[in-house]
């Protein structure tokens, strides 16, 4: 999977990483039992602090998305689930927002509010 961190974003780096893993699991790109790269490996690969990756992994563990095992690293524990309806809804949302010329920030703000 693709990991990316943008220091220019307002979100902290560990939030960006955790969000990408969550999204990859929701898309079915990461499946149950799959192993994430080791924290040390990923940190040096992205040239960021080890603690940033560890913090992202800990957040994901607390949510039950991954399990952290000594010696085995981070393993995805998400049960297989069909989220195709959600993906279709997201696609529709993006299409509608674009056709109405609504800024991405406004759209995500609306979604965040609705989810509250």
């Amino acid at each position, binding site marked *: 999977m*693709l990991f*990316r*961190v943008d220091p220019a974003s307002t979100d902290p780096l560990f939030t960006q990483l955790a969000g990408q893993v969550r999204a990859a699991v929701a898309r079915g790109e990461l499946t149950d039992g799959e192993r994430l790269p080791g924290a040390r490996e*990923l940190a040096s*690969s*992205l040239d960021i602090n080890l603690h940033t990756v560890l913090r992202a992994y800990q957040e994901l563990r607390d949510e039950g998305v991954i399990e952290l095992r000594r010696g085995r690293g981070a393993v995805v524990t998400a049960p297989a689930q069909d989220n195709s309806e959600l993906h279709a809804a997201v696609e529709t949302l993006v299409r509608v927002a674009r056709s109405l010329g609504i800024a991405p920030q406004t759209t995500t703000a609306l979604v965040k509010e609705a989810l509250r």
Partner: protein
Amino acid sequence: MTPPVPPPAPYRSVSTVLTLVVPLALAAVPLVVARAWEAELPDPVAVHFSADGPDGFSSLAGAVWPAFAIGAVVAVSAWALAFFWGRTAQVRRVAAGSALGLTAFVSAVVVGTLELQRGLTDAADMGGVGLVLALAFAIGIAAAALGAWAVPPDAHQPATDPVPATAALLDLGPGEAATWVTHAESRTALVVGGAVVVLQVALALLLTLPFLLLPAVVVAAIVLSSTWFTVTVDRRGLTVRSALGRPRFVVPLDEVQQAHVVAVSPLTEFGGWGYRVGRGGRVGVVLRTGEALQVERSGGRSFVVTVDDAATGAALLNTLAARTRIG
């Protein structure tokens, strides 16, 4: 637009020595030895052996010349491979290793079996050849390893051309860092290899034959080093690393000219599965038919690895490579 003509393979004189001159000399050793020992050897000599002793006989010339012919064919093929397709060090290593290993092994077998027949009047009286075969095998492996080691590695050749405008890119912010991680694996080989290891361990335990654990360890190491690879694209370039950590293949980012998605057919393009040299000197980790990430590298080299979602990996590699060409 015609594709640019790739540069000739480097280190052609070293390759000629390692794949042609030395292997031909090794292949000629039995010819010299046979001449020197001719008076002491029985006529005919034994050339084929079963568990009970020799079961095939031939004249002395018939014993040594076919072996020389095999060695010569191997040496010439390996030389052609290294000379014309050897742009990547790995190709030259495979060529030097197989030419030296095979000629050393064949010559050791011929000389060893002739040595056992010296002073006999009837070749049928000679003893077993097990020790000779084991020794020849060890000599062959040592020669192959020495040859592969003697091959000069590729010089660092930073790419100078910009990444082509047609290359697929990823929308990456100017300060944004990205890493793409995936796996290349052969499930069939993993399952079959794993079953063999389990069987060997079970036999070793059931029959209380602890020495059977040795082949189990060897098979496990072969399976772990050749059937499951972690593939990473990041600021350092492309890294393909086996589950054991070795072998490990790296294409540094500054040597990347362009990455793209290709469809690979292992049997027709690479002659099989695994870590392979393909037609034209393309090297790669080819574990299944289908989608693969191919990197065009400076010096006319190509590296390919079979992965899913190769498009994302190729786009990231192009994007990161393009960054290194600015300024």
